[in-house]
Every structure is written in structure tokens, then in C-alpha cells.
């Protein structure tokens, strides 16, 4: 088992190198540091000296891949590629354009993100399973039919509308919760209640419909017929057999997103003013802060790959038939 995990983890290395090369190409080759400097300083009236000064301040005044002005190993390390891209592997993200350490920002901002995303994830799964099980239990009745119709309708509404509608109803009309903002400790509850609810509700459409198909597929299998044939009540069949077996694809499918919960929700965080990584990323995109966007791209990929790894491990743990090749 451990050998398997180690081998899977080693597979991640070439993928991370690939991600690193893609981000390097996107941020430095297609778009040179000169372009970045011009964007930050204003495109039109900008002198060559100002561009050089900006590059020197932000450490972009080096050759791309190979520095022939210095000796020895420095020829490779004293370059933009090493300073800005290779260092990402040890989570050395450098500074944002406003001079603050990106690493410090990330380590403080990931907790509000997690505080929002973890409840959305857990409550979301519970709610979706409940609705899906209900529809599967009343399959091929009007309840099921209108349930599916409702799911499709809910899927067809943009996530932005759930947020805007929720804010309007609960914060503006009914004044139940503050419209946006965040506080640590127990106060966090009143700020997070609405974002969590909105996150859960906006996910019901696709989630419940998907789980319903999983349950229905499970209910067509032989062991369910056997269970019915030996005279089990339909509720017993549903909860003891179908639910348990349906949980395998549901949980293994959910595992992949667990690490990315740290990344936060881009849109929700910026609407609700939660100081997490999602709003950090959006602010960086809007301020065209390439250093932050680059770091978030890399961090997101790392977390996604960890998620893939966890998925593989969870498969082997949940289902003993899966062979460890």
C-alpha cells in the first residue's frame, strides 16, 4: 500500500513540472516582463528607464533561462526561470506587486476560504444525497418527475443569480444577516450562514440529479432484486443496500475536491467580501498582478493533483476489488 502511494506521488512530479513550464511560457515568454511593467505603469506615457526600474525592483531584470554574465551554477540560478518558476516548487512565491509576501497572504487567507468551503462541501453532499434518495425512492412517480424538472431548472440558473438573489432577500429585505464582510471566531457564523446556504442551494440541481442516476443505476442491479425477493421492506433496501453501495461512487467522486477547498470560491468570496484565497485571486486578476495569479495557478494545480492522489487511494480503500498495480 505504501509503495503504491509513493509511486502515485512520484507520478505527480512530471505533471507539476509540466504545469510549471506552461505557466512560465504563459507569463514570461508570450508576455515579456517589459509588457508587465508597461501594464503596471500605464501603457502610453512610459519611459524606458521607468520600465527598467520597475523590472529591477520586482526582480525581472535577469535573463530568461541562461545568464552568461556570471560564473558557475549561477548561470542557471540567476535567471528569471529559476527565481520565479523553479522556486514555486518549494512554495517560495515571492512578493506581490504591492510588496507583500504572497506566501504570508496565502497562509492567512486559506482559513476563511476553508471556513466557507468545508461547510458547503459537507452540507452540500448531505442535502444532495437526501434529495436524490427521495427521488429514487419515489422513482417514476410525479414526485420524481417534478423533482428532476426542478433540478434541471435549478441547474439552468447562473450561480451569480443565487448570490445576488440571496443577498437581496436575506440582507436587504429581511435584514437577517450582514450583506458582506467577515470576522474570526464565533462571529464568523453570521457572516458565513448566507454564503454557505447559497453555495449549497446552487449545487443542488446538478448534484441531486447526478446522485439520483447513481442510485437508480445501483437499484437496477441483481443484489437489490435479491434483497427484495427475500422480502426486505423497500426502506430497508434503500437505506441498507442502495445507499451504502451508492456511496462508493459518490464519496470517491467527492474526494478529488477536498484539497481544492482551500482555494476557496472565486465568485462567492468576492461578492460576500470574505478575505479568502478566492477573492485574493480575483483582486489579483483585476489588478493584473501576474505574480499572484502565477502562484495561485501553481498552488491550485498542486492541490488538484493531491486530490487525484487521494481519489486513487480512496478507491483502493473503499473497494477491495481494485488491484494495486
Amino acid at each position: 500500500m505504501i509503495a503504491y502511494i509513493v509511486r502515485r506521488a512520484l507520478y505527480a512530479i512530471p505533471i507539476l513540472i509540466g504545469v510549471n513550464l506552461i505557466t512560465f511560457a504563459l507569463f514570461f515568454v508570450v508576455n515579456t516582463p517589459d509588457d508587465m511593467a508597461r501594464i503596471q505603469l500605464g501603457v502610453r506615457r512610459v519611459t524606458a528607464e521607468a520600465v527598467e526600474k520597475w523590472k529591477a525592483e520586482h526582480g525581472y531584470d535577469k535573463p530568461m533561462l541562461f545568464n552568461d554574465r556570471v560564473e558557475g551554477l549561477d548561470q542557471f540560478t540567476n535567471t528569471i526561470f529559476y527565481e520565479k518558476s523553479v522556486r514555486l516548487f518549494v512554495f517560495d512565491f515571492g512578493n506581490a506587486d504591492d510588496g507583500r509576501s504572497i506566501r504570508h497572504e496565502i497562509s492567512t487567507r486559506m482559513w476563511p476560504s476553508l471556513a466557507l468551503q468545508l461547510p458547503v462541501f459537507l452540507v452540500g453532499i448531505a442535502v444532495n444525497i437526501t434529495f436524490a434518495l427521495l427521488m429514487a425512492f419515489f422513482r417514476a412517480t410525479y414526485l420524481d418527475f417534478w423533482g428532476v424538472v426542478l433540478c434541471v431548472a435549478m441547474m439552468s440558473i447562473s450561480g451569480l443569480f443565487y448570490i445576488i438573489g440571496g443577498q437581496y432577500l436575506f440582507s436587504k429585505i429581511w435584514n437577517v444577516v450582514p450583506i458582506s464582510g467577515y470576522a474570526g471566531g464565533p462571529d464568523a457564523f453570521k457572516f458565513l450562514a448566507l454564503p454557505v446556504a447559497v453555495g449549497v442551494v446552487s449545487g443542488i440541481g446538478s448534484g441531486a440529479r447526478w446522485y439520483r442516476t447513481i442510485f437508480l443505476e445501483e437499484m437496477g442491479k441483481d443484489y437489490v432484486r435479491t434483497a427484495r425477493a427475500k422480502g426486505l421492506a423497500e426502506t430497508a433496501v434503500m437505506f441498507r443496500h442502495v445507499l451504502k453501495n451508492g456511496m462508493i461512487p459518490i464519496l470517491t467522486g467527492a474526494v478529488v475536491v477536498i484539497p481544492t477547498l482551500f482555494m476557496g470560491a472565486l465568485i462567492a468570496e468576492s461578492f460576500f467580501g470574505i478575505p479568502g484565497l478566492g477573492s485574493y485571486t480575483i483582486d489579483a486578476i483585476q489588478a493584473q498582478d501576474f505574480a499572484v495569479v502565477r502562484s495561485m495557478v501553481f498552488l491550485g494545480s498542486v492541490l488538484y493533483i493531491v486530490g487525484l492522489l487521494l481519489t486513487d487511494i480512496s478507491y483502493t480503500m473503499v473497494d477491495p476489488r481494485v488491484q494495486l498495480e
Partner: protein
Amino acid sequence: MMFVPLTTDILVWLLFAAIAAYFVYVLRQPHLLMPWRRVTQSAYGMSALVVLAAFIVVGLLDSLHYRPVLERKAGQDAAYSTEVLSVFDVVATGLRARRERTYSAPFATRAYARETIEISGPGGKPRQAREFPRLSWGGAHLKDEAERDNDIFVRAAQGLMLGLLAWCALAAAVTLLHARLANRTAREAWRAIWRTETRTPWHAILFTAGALLAFAGLAFALCTHYHILGTDKVGRDVFYLALKSIRTGLVIGTLTTLVLLPFAVTLGIMAGYFRGWIDDAIQYIYTTISSIPGVLLIAAAVLLMQVYIDRHPEIFPTAAERADLRLLFLCVILGLTSWTGLARLLRGEALKLRELEFVQAAQAFGVRDARIISRHILPNVMHIVLITLVMDFSGLVLAEAVLSYVGVGVDPSMISFGTMINAARLEMSREPIVWWALAAAFVFMFVLVLAANLFADAVRDAFDPRVRAGYAPRLANAKA
């Protein structure tokens, strides 16, 4: 008039031609026609198709662009306006031209905000007052504003009559067509349709078309004298904006799939068919790409595009062409980041197919790999491609709104659902609240995406062999 074929226009029309050619081909192939027959037998699928068709007509009309001639003086070459218009703009000239100064509510006759205006006071002396000024177009034909409700009612009734007339014509045509095809008299055909005894669900089609025509009639009768969905911050008619947004959504939903298709099909099938190092390499590529968070990759690429546009303003003669290039680029980026899912599906299917007897027989006969893939593998995975393409469409329309909100979507000058929602965010905090632009974007987007989702469901049910073979019979029944 100077014809300006924007790049996306050309691609949209090419795509339309390709789809038309596909259906002409399908009509001659019984085995391809069969699943499409099943689509035409699904009531909700055909209702969705009617709605989609209405959207597509608007989108296609909006995809023929030209630059109008400015007033020409004798002996001079024609000068062209820098404004690019479309055929749809000509149809909706009234809507486009009737601009107010700023916000106004739906059906309002007065503006949203007070302005200082001169009114004639007692004794005939003009004096200044803070008043809600009358709109320059909305309800301007009314002498007395108290008549407004009456006027709206009369016009609405006229519009509904118009819609009803059009519907009657359509219903008559459908009945006669069905009578002809089924060899019945017109009376029998009419009865069969409303007893839902026809194989094609004509009742559902007529019902949906009736709802659409009623709305179109109402809108047509009222929009010439009122702003039926209000006006936005700079006084543009929101109804016009919502109709213009349709093209943007359709372009993103269709052209993106056009970009992702070649990558997904060739790479996915190659990985599954050849296995070995080719499989490893292709799997490596798509795992790497899919591990980068999609929004961030798109954001990064669009930021780069922005820099390029800023540095080369000279290659775009008009703002519309610049916005169009950005739209096209957005489609390309979305396509390049989203081909991985389909490729993974196709790889799995090709892995299964290559072990089947007919493929092995072809290999034993020494048929070249390229030919086996094109003749034996490709036709057998086309249903997956088709299902994925229709299912992806609605997601892409929704994605456009989110990306435009983040600021990496379409050009801010381009009318789209995303830019409408984006603008509405500030309007929601005004007092009294400006709700109409957001509501219009919501309704139009919801109807478009819902229709796309329902149609995609119908296509999936018809093409998915698992549903057909009774693998999940309950699913199929419950859906119907």
C-alpha cells in the same frame, strides 16, 4: 454599405452550414436517422428545440455585420461609419435608436431620477423645479399620462391578437402537414394532435410556439412606444440589450466546441487505440492541463491577450472588430482548456472498441491504422461526441457570465449576459432599486440555458445506448 464579415460571423455561418450538411447527410442514412427520430418524439425535447430555434434565428441575424455609409458628398469616395451594425440592428432600428438619457423603469413615462427642468408656473412665468422629466421616447405619444394603462392594455390586446393570428396560421400549416403525412383528413389530424396521438409531439410544439408567439406579439406591439424592460444607465433599451446578448452566448457555446473537437477526438481516440507510449504522452498532456484551475488558466491567457491588444491598436479598424477578436480568443482559450473531459471519455471508449472482433478483423486484414480509426472507431464514438457537445453548450453560456464578472470574459463594450449582470451589481444598491436589467438578463439566460439543457437531455436519451438497451429502463421511463 460596406460588408464587414467579423471572424466569428464567418465561423458561425460555417458552423451553421456544417450542421445543415450533417442533417442532409443524416436524412439518407437510416441508422443515423433513427436516434434523431427518437429526439423528435420527445415532447420536452421538441419544445426546447422550438425555443432554441427562436434564439438561433436572432443570433444568426445578429451575425451579419456591415458598416453603414456616411452621408456622401458629390465627387467624394464613400466614407463609412466606424459603427458596425448587424442585420438584426436594422430589424430592431427602433429599439436601438430610441435612447433615453439614463435609467427608466419598464413602461415608465418618466425618468428614474429627478432633474432640474423648466416648467411654466402660475401666470405663465417659467420657473425651475426638481421633477421627474418625461422620457423622450417611452410613452411620449401620450398627451395625458393617466391614459397610459389604457393605452398599454389596448396595445397588449392588439399584440396578443397578432400573436394569435400567427399561431393560427402555424397551427393550420402543421395540421395540414400532419394530415398529408398521416393520410388523414384535416379534422382527424387536428383531433389526433390534441389527443397527443401523433408520433411527433405536435401538441407540445404548438403549445410552445403559441407561448413564444404570444410573447413576441406583446413585445412587438408594446416596444415601439414603451421601453418594455426599461432602460439602462446610458439610456439603452434593456430589451434590445437582452436580444443582443443572445448572439454572444450562442457564439461562446458553439465556437468553443468547434475548437475543442479536433483536440478531443484525435488525441482521445489515438490514446485509446494505440496505447503504449502514445497513450502515456497524451494522458500526461491532458492530466497536466486539467490540473491547472480552469478559471485561472483562462484569466492568465486573457490577461495576455489584453496586453497584446493594448500594444497593437493599429490592427483593429473598429471597436467591434477588436471586441470580436477578443470573443474569438475567449472561445479558443475555453476550448483549449476544456477538451480534456471529452478526450478522457473517448480514450476509454476506444480502449474498449479496439478489442472488438470487427476491429481485430480489420487489423488482421492489414488495414492501415488511420483507416481503422476513421472507418471503424470514429463512427462508433460519434454518439459520445454528440452528447458531450450538446451537454457542454449550456455550461459554456453560464461560464461566460461568470468570466465576464471576473473581468476576463468578453470585451466590456460587447453586449452579453455577463456584462449586463456585471453592471446590474451596482444598480442593486441604488435606491429605489434598479431591478429590470438584472431581471431581463435572468429571464433570457434562464430560458436559453433551460432550453439547451432539456434539448441536451432529449439528445442524450436518444443516443445513449445504455438507455436504449434497457440498461436503465426506469430512468428512461421516469424521464418521459
